[in-house]
């Protein structure tokens, strides 16, 4: 058997195996996304494709529709975990072996559909989000509906979860090991804690003078427009009109950054915020709280 034929059969076999644990996730108004049966009864998918909290369904490879609930979300890495009564649905084979630049990989979407390419880089190239340091940049096409699906190696093992939503203009995969830590947190605590600050913010441009005083070249930050009473922000003394420039050393350039930078594991930790108050820089120490479930 020659090399190309052998590789071709191996790739087709890998997709066939993946198709047994790849599900359709129906949790947004537009077309659905893809999910992976990661552990018994737990479906991992891309958080940005789970736009609703109720009436979520999962379509199994054999066409059954299962009701699903949100077990937890980790927006910072764009991972959501759904709970389903999965029965004998095949569980994904996940490899802890880290992917390397140049590896041939396949992205699999519901259907099954597939695209192939290479791991082109490790890290999202922007350097400003520490949790993105081990993300896999992909030289392949994530077609509509692929987000949340598995990135597999030529043996059909899951090396990551693909998403086109976490980093704009990038086709990336969250490494399986990173997803595992979130799923483990969920198993251990019974939930994924949602970090909570208690501020409402809007984007604000930083003037040249302020940039100089803050010794930063970032062009925007967020201004506090609301501080919720009895919140971590209130306890830390944050005030309406404060401009938050960074949190824990990570730049905050828009309100979404505040949500993206906070990890579930950080609940209870104290971090330092760089803030401009009345045009003067100051440091604020803040203990990250946990958002309680809304009734």
């Amino acid at each position: 058997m020659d090399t190309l034929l052998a590789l071709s059969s191996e790739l087709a076999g890998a997709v066939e195996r993946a198709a047994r644990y790849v599900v359709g996730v129906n949790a947004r108004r537009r077309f659905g996304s893809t999910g992976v049966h990661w552990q018994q009864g737990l479906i991992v998918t891309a958080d940005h494709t789970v736009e609703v909290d109720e009436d979520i369904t999962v379509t199994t490879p054999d066409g059954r529709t299962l009701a699903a609930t949100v077990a937890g979300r980790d927006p910072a890495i764009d991972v959501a975990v759904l709970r389903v009564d999965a029965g004998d649905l095949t569980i994904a084979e996940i490899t802890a072996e880290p992917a390397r630049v140049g590896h041939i990989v396949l992205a699999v979407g519901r259907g099954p559909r597939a695209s192939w390419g290479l791991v082109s880089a490790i890290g999202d190239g922007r350097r400003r989000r520490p949790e993105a340091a081990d993300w896999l940049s992909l030289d392949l096409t994530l077609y509509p509906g692929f987000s949340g699906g598995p990135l597999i190696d030529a043996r059909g093992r899951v090396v990551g979860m693909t998403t086109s939503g976490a980093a704009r203009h990038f086709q990336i995969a969250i490494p399986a090991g990173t997803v595992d830590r979130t799923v483990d947190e969920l198993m251990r605590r019974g939930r994924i804690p949602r970090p909570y600050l208690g501020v409402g913010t809007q984007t604000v441009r930083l003037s040249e003078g302020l940039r100089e005083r803050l010794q930063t070249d970032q062009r925007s930050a967020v201004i506090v427009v609301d501080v919720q009473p009895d919140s971590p922000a209130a306890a830390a003394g944050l005030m309406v009109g404060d401009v938050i420039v960074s949190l824990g050393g990570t730049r905050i350039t828009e309100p979404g950054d505040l949500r993206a930078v906070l990890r579930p594991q950080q609940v209870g930790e104290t971090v330092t915020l760089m803030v401009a108050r009345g045009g003067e820089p100051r440091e604020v120490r803040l203990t990250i709280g946990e958002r309680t479930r809304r009734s």
Partner: protein
Amino acid sequence: MIASAPIDFAALAETLRRVTVEITDDGAGRGSGVLWPRGHVVTNAHVVRRSRVSVGTLERDHLQAHLVARSPDADLALLQLDGIELPTATIAETPARVGSLVVAVGNPFGLRGALTAGIVHAIAPIARNGAPWIHADVRLAPGNSGGPLADMSGAVVGINAMVAGGLALAMPISRVLEFVLSTGVVRS
């Protein structure tokens, strides 16, 4: 099983280029075609809009061919080369699988014999309850229409017909065979 399957993409390209032609329709259309037994050429109906066309191979230009059968519904056409027989394409015996490697050869923008490689993305209808198509993750351009989509043994699994959402859509070879049989001029 094919005894001497190509061992690299270059050898594969060579095999396919010998059985792929360029079709020019006196300016009205331009595309690709696949050489079939007894001097026939299979292509898309939308490539051939006249009864006489010009066919170019790797080695020869301006071969004359005439239209034998054309089905706009199936988007397929069968041509007969005038007084010449050429090597013919090998037809795949097994259908394409999702994830398997494929190559397309054709004449995108008149670039003769251009090769592009990728995988089968899906086997699915393009319209609700329609017949299945091969969706391939390969880069096609105008001029590829009518050309072969082939597996790693060089056997043709489909005829490239269009591009949608960045994906190549190829007609499975089984439907092409049905069409050719239905014309009654070629027995398989």
